[in-house]
């Protein structure tokens, strides 16, 4: 058989006895279990929407500690959006996950919130950039992958609709990463108000072409399909977060929030969508989140970058954040001032040296003159001593 024949006719054959190809999934399972995985989740939203509590509730551990008073006061009028990364390693039944949670304090908290989503977007793109660069290195071992797999956007429930800030921010973020909208502090809306709010939010998302994460619905397992449909119908997820255990009226101990008028339970589907969101993030769709990030979002970034840049060229800097520009100006000013100071110092030193040299030269000349004088005296005396000399005086 010639090579061309082999290429043109690829026959599909099922082996009768079974050579063992079907064992690949098991091998893969072993490899993945040993390797573990890397998961990055970002939480974006105004302060006080329950981001920290949600993360701590999700992970059943206090990963993010509440801010101290001094730190909080400093942030109040600070006018910047920070990016804080919290790392944790989770282990469950011999499977471990390296988890990164990215928090964005200061987002939407000020009087002027124009462009406050830029640091968020920059962070996401920078992670893609880092990964891209590392891929292009000769040695690819030990790649640090901080690409964000899911971004939870916390919407404050004002009972009407999305704010312009939410619309602009979600549009920018959703184009670059898996965006999952979440209604924060859902225990402040009555069930009818909540339904209406969800509908309005989805209407705006559609009308404004905001791209949100769409989990795959169809699956081989009937039960999975039903569950998936259930999850999708709950978007945006209304959540309540709590790390405390409280006792309900009928004596159960649950995770929830205790009010004088009742207990709002975190894991009760009648009260909020926490379980569905947890399922989406971890139990059922974690892999899909990771693969969509790599195959869709990262790939899009890679394609656009490679079209315009040569291999190995650094990324051109975009228009910076205004606040960073100001800082840059300040630093530049300080630097020039320092340089000026040093130059002055050197000049003075030079002057001193020149003055010193002149002084020494003068001394030298004086000495020289003295020497000359003495020399001429000696000559005069020796002339007197010589035969054809003049009178000599004693």
């Amino acid at each position, binding site marked *: 058989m010639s090579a061309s024949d082999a290429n043109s006719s690829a026959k599909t054959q099922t082996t009768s006895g079974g050579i063992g190809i079907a064992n690949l999934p098991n091998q893969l399972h072993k490899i993945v279990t040993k390797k573990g995985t890397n998961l990055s989740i970002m939480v974006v939203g*105004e302060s006080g929407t329950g981001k920290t509590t949600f993360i701590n509730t999700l992970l059943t551990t206090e990963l993010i500690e509440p801010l101290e008073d001094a730190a909080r006061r400093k942030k109040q009028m600070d006018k910047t959006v920070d990016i804080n990364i919290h790392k944790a390693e989770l282990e469950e039944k011999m499977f471990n996950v390296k988890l990164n949670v990215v928090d964005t304090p200061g987002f939407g908290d000020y009087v002027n919130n124009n462009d406050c989503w830029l640091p968020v977007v920059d962070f996401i793109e920078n992670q893609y950039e880092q990964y891209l660069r590392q891929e292009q290195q000769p040695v690819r071992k030990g790649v640090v992958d901080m690409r964000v797999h899911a971004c939870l956007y916390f919407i*404050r429930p004002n009972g009407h609709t999305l704010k312009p800030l939410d619309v*602009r921010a979600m549009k920018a973020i959703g184009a670059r990463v898996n965006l999952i909208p979440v209604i924060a502090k859902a225990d402040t809306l*009555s069930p009818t108000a909540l339904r209406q709010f969800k509908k309005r939010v989805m209407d705006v998302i559609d009308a404004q072409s905001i791209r949100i994460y769409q989990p795959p619905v169809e699956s081989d397992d009937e039960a999975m399909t039903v569950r998936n449909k259930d999850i999708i119908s709950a978007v945006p997820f209304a959540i309540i977060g709590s790390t405390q255990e409280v006792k309900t009226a009928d004596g159960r101990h649950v995770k929830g929030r205790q009010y004088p008028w009742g207990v709002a339970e975190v894991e009760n589907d009648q*009260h909020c969508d926490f379980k569905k969101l947890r399922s989406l993030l971890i139990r059922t769709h974690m892999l899909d989140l990771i693969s969509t990030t790599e195959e869709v979002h990262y790939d899009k970034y890679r394609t656009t970058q490679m079209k315009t840049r040569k291999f190995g060229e650094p990324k051109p800097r975009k228009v910076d954040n205004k606040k960073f520009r100001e800082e840059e100006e300040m630093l530049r000013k300080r630097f020039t001032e320092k340089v000026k100071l040093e130059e002055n110092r050197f000049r003075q030193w030079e002057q001193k040296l020149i003055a010193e040299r002149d002084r020494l030269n003068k001394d030298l000349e004086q000495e020289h003159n003295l020497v000359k004088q003495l020399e001429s005296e000696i000559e005069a005396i020796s002339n007197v001593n010589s035969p054809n000399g003049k009178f000599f005086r004693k």
Partner: protein
Amino acid sequence: MAPSAPSINSTMSSRMATPRPSSYRYKSEKRGMTYNIMLVGQSGLGRRTFLNTLCEREVISPPEAPNPETANIADPMRFDTYEVNIEEEGTRISMTVIDTPGFGDGLDNTECFKQLQDYIEAQFDEVLVEESRIKRNRRYRDHRIHTLIYFITPTGHSLRELDIELIKRLGEYVNIIPVIGRADSLTVEELATFKQNVMRDIDYYKLPLYNFCWDESDSEALKENREIMDYTPFSVVTCDEVLDNEFGAVRVRRYPWGSIEIDDEGQCDFALLRYILLNSHIADLINYTEDVLYENYRTKKLEVGGFGEGEDQGDEENDEDDEVLGAKNE
């Protein structure tokens, strides 16, 4: 059906029974006290429902469904005026409420403060002009804002830049009473911590809130007022529906896990706030606005040379002012 006075301090109701020597109570009995309140706060904190619950009827109807196509554009702030006549324990109050939808809802809200300040100053200016007329209008309606109710977002942490800036800038022109909107999103401990943090911020930034204890002459009232100040900022929850149970009609807000009774002081400060606004402190708020805030404004304005006072300011300025007054009188 007015909710009964809160049982916090029984002497408060007795204060109302004995008329205080304020000119307002006597003169305005027939017409009804003129009382102007402004509601300020970001959308979704319950300003509209607060007013409806306060007046026990739907004064402001629910807004129309927002248009999803324009959700990315912020509506500019506007001033909506509502006239409500209330009868509170025998006193007639002719209340004007000014709502400010659009405050703090845009991307850049730096202009909002100036707009509010201009509005409040405009009301003062109107009175200033009216006072200086040769022939005054007997039916003149005073539009000066007596109380500004500011709705704080229940973040559970502390004040935000918007809150701090607003109180800082407007505190010298109007009585500001801080209120926690949607307070039912906070548990009992969270509410206590939040109130504490807010008051600490207010001390730290020296924010000029309405000082309930401004009148130090009446020592009994002073004691009461100190107790009231411990409740600030007032937690407010607003009414969704009225239930009928064995005790009569109860105003509630219902959740799958329980119902809040709006008028129960153990659950929120609405009843107390209502009592303060419409009953025990209405005269104080009005008097402070007229005797202190307005007078300060007037002094400042006249020092700068706005209305013709002071011959030593130069003939040019006087002529200008005469022109203004002359024009207004025609």
